[in-house]
Structure formats: C-alpha cells, structure tokens
C-alpha cells in the first residue's frame, strides 16, 4: 500500500487559476474593500436544493480544482465563517435556519448564492413552498448561476470575490507550487 500512497503523493499539483479581472472590477464596486484578507472560511447552507449543487461544491475540493490552494476552506461553524454560501431555493422550512446562520456570522460577512435555485428559485420559480432563492431571506453579494454551476465556475466566482474585497494593493503573485520529483518508472 505504501508504494501506492507515495506514488500518488508525488504526482503533480494542479494548475492554479486566476480571477477574471473584469468580474473583479464589477464586484469591487458592489462589495467594496473589506478587512477580511485573502484566507476566507466558507459556511455552506443547503437551503432546499436537489443536491446537485452540493455534489459540485464538494468537487471544488478534489485534486483537479483544489479550492484550498487559494486559501479558501469550508468550515462547519457559521461563527468561524467569512462567506455564507447558499444553495437551493430557500424552502419555507429552511428560512429560519438560513437566517439564523447568517445572524451567527461575525461581520463583515459575504453571501454567495450558488446555483440557479439559489439565484431565483431556478426551475422551481413560482412554487408556493419556497422563498424564491437565497435573496428571499438574506442579502446576497455574488451569484454563481448554473444548474448546477461547474466546479470551475464556482472556483472562478469565489476567486473573483476574494480579489474584489481584498484590501488594495494586491499581494505579490502567489508562487507556483513546488514540483515534486517524479518516481522512476517501475
């Protein structure tokens, strides 16, 4: 087993992504600079999704997208969170919990709606059982549309948000991950 582990540990790190400058500019006008910095903790609240968006959110942590390399991590507690990330239609039965999660976060905090359902209810728009997306319960700073948005789109959106709210000027560009030596072929 240890040989397998070693081989995998030494395989190459994924390529880093950069935030889209145009999106950063628009977002900066919207959210303004905050004192949060660049290492942000995210609390995900699933507020009535079909679970498709959760699958793709989990995928942002896999070896291909590796969200953690940008300083973004998921936290189980809203008390530790800088970003509230909402998926789902904001079902009536979830409204109270969603509002409580937002209220439990320290300020300043950012709110991101991920997926068409969270943007405006998506295909469920008009159903009497929903609040019509995250915006029906909490003030939203950024929407990442898609049904579900791909992990790449989610990473792009979050990177832009980090850049947009980070205090100016931008920090020096992050170094490329060190390339590990390759094992000789067996």
């Amino acid at each position, binding site marked *: 087993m240890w040989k397998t582990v070693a081989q995998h540990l030494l395989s190459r790190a994924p390529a880093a992504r950069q935030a889209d400058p145009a999106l950063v500019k628009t977002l900066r006008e919207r959210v303004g600079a905050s004192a949060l910095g660049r290492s942000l903790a995210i609390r995900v609240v699933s507020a*009535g999704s079909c679970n498709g968006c959760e699958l793709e959110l989990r995928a942002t942590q896999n070896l291909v997208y590796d969200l953690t390399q940008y300083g973004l991590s998921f936290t189980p507690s809203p008390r530790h969170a800088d970003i509230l990330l909402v998926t789902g239609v904001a079902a009536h039965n979830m409204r109270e919990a969603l509002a409580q999660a937002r209220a439990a976060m320290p300020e300043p905090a950012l709110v991101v709606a991920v997926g068409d359902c969270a943007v405006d209810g998506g295909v469920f728009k008009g159903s009497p059982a929903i609040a019509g997306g995250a915006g029906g319960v909490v003030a939203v700073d950024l929407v990442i549309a898609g049904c579900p948005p791909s992990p790449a789109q989610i990473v792009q959106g979050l990177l832009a948000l980090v850049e947009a709210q980070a205090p100016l000027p931008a920090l020096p560009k992050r170094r490329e991950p060190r390339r590990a030596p390759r094992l000789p072929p067996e």
Partner: protein
Amino acid sequence: MILLSHEDWVARRGRFIALWTDARHAYALYQPGELVAVELVDGAYPALSHAGAAWFQRLAHDLNGHTALGATDTRPAIDHGRAADGTGPWPEFKSPEVEGVHQVAVGPIHAGIIEPGHFRFSVRGETVLKLEARLGYTHKGTLGLIRGKSPRLAARFAARVSGDATVAHASAFAHAAEAALRLEVPARAVYLRAVMAELERLANHTSDIGAIAGDAGFAFLDARFALARERLCAAAQAAFGHRLMMDAVIPGGVAGDISTGGAAAVLDALTALEAELPSLKRIFEDYASLQDRVVGTGIVPPALAAAYAAGGYAGRASGQTHDARLLPGYAPYDNFALFVPVEQEGDVAARIRIRLAEIPESIRLIRDMLHSLPETPIAIAPQAGSGAAVGAAESFRGPVWYWLRIESGVIADVFIADPSTLHWPLVEHAAATAILADFPLINKSINASYSGVDL
C-alpha cells in the same frame, strides 16, 4: 390498477413500495409494480400496517389532507407549521424512559456540504438509544409544479427530484409517461439511457465510498475516489453535454446523441478507474484502522431490510436480491446478463463491498453497450394521448418509481417514490445500534436522499 375493498386493501401482503392519494383514491404499489387502490371515504382510507407505509401516510396527509385511519404515526412529514416569516414551533421528541438519557440535536444545517434535515439522538453516554429524523426541510412543491405540464416540460422537474440520481429519476419518469401514452422508444435511446444510468452509478459509488473513508479520517481514499468521480463527470460532460447528465433523458428518448469522441472519453475514464480500483480496494480491505470503523458498524439485519423492501446497496448488503434492472422488460439489461452482488452482514463494510463489486459490473455494461449501440433515431415525439401508468428505474441507491395520470397530453396527477423513503427508517434503526461518533459513517453508507423524499 386493481380496485380493492377496504378489507382486501388492509389484508394485502407483499413487498410494499409506496402509497399515495389523489382526489378519489388511495393507491399502494407492491413489487414488482402491482398497483392497487381503495376508494377514499370522507377524505380517509384505512392505514396499511407495512413498516414502510408510515412516511407515505404522513406525506399524503400533509400534501392532500387525507387521513390514514388507524395509523399509529401521525407526525407531520413536510408540514412544519411555518408562519409567513418562516418561524414555527418545534415538535416534541420523545426519549426512551431510562436513567441517564439525554438528547443531542443535530441540524437542519449539517457540518458537511450535504442536504438539510434534523436528527434528534437520545443517547446514554456515547451509545445512541434512539434516533428520530425530522425531514421535510427541502420541500419544494415539486408534485404541484409537475401537474398541468406536458411530459416533456415536466421532465425538468423529474430530473431535479434528487440531483445525484437525475438520470434514474428522469428515466423512471419517462418510463411511466411512455407506458401511459403507449410509446415505443427507439433502441438507441434505450441504450444511451442505460449508459448514462451506469455512469451515474459509477460517479456516485466512487464519490460515496471515498466520502465514507473520509469520514473515518482516511483522506487518501477520499481524494483518489473523488478524482475518479471527477474523471467520470468530465467524461459525461464530453459525451452528453452535462456533468450530471441532467435533462439528457426525456419522454420519448434522449435529448441528444452521444457526441463525437464522447464514447472515447467515457471509455478512457473507465480505463483509469479500472486500473486504480484494485489498489484502492486493497487499501480499503487491508487498512486495520479503517476496517475497525466500518466492520460491525450500523447493522441492518436482513429481516429488517426485508420488512422495508430495501433496495440498492442498502438492501443488497442485507440479503435482499431485488434490482429493478432485473424486472422483465427492463431494456436493454435483458441483453447483458446482469450480475447483482448480494451480502448478508448488513454493516457499513458490507454496503461498501457491494458498491465496490458493482463498479466493475457497471464498467463492463457501459463498454458492452457502447460497442453495440443500435443505429436508430434517438427520440420520438410524445403524442397528446391519455392514460395512467407506473414506471421504474434502478438508481444507484435503489429503484425509483413514478406514477403518472396523463389526460389529453397534460399530466393530471403524479407521485414520485424515491427508494430513500424506505431507507430513512433503516438509518434510524442502524444508528440506534452504534455510538454517536459512528453516525456519519452509517448515514453516508446508506446515503438516503433528503430532496428525494421531501419532494
């Protein structure tokens, strides 16, 4: 459909799948797809005593206001009594009356990136004495949105009942619509649906096995299985234009043909998975601290699984042999001699072993199907007929059933039974055999859908 007297309705035995009501009748579905009904009297019908019937009866009450006479469990299912501002009361959760018991409340918001639900554990020390799951948090009014739409329009909702099983739900919905309208689906569409269904099974099996290992603190397997899922999703995107293959299955066929190069992308992902699987499997089997967490944990005894007619790996790890793909007439599986693994232990480890054994089988099926794709059109347009029917499809977690009544090309009524409805009680039972710290493993090893039961 067979209309029964009240006595025959109550006395009916068999493997119960689902119960629902419409304006005039209560319906009950038994394996292998037998539909019986009883007339409502003053909005009420006699309660069924099958173990799995309770949730459906609670749901029928909350959705349609119909009462199951003599039902012992009358807790609300999806009606949380919320006021316009979203606030509402908490129900009372009863603990067993023993000394030293206290309650632990978890959710509706969970620690991980998963759907919402509330779990109330009654524990003494570390030992869980009872778990009560309060669901309904993801109720979106899906059934109401489907009514009044054409089958093609309504397929978008079926595809979003449970996103991880979108192909299976869309297929079961399509099977019901096609049976109701007596449509003959072109052979190529039948094959492509099955290819997508098996890809979906592989994507879920890999990511769930990894996630269970991750919950046991074994990050390496989590990372490797997550990468396998990623490759499969990328292949699905290349072949069918969507990573989860949402909206790819429609009544009458499939929405698009497999892309040029799509088959090659899928086959490449399968080769990568097949090459790595033996070493990952060995790690799962050899690593003592991982086996220590999963062997003997969260046991679902075969008798309990039989009582709930459990399907999928949750049933097959506990001696149940049922698989909807073995149903007569479930094309194209009758051409491919399906192998269905079955175990008896019923613990977390057995559920993982079933899924590990299903992976090579799905790989084989996809290869064989892609190599024998029939050259026919990929869809026919549903005509505006009338009829009622049930349809089934085997999702990765078990059989999904749809019931549709179509009038002049418009869906007049619908019911959706995800296997999770029968699996949630198993989660409750299995949790009460273990310590609190094992619950994440048990829950993930059964992996019942929240959205699929809340509708």
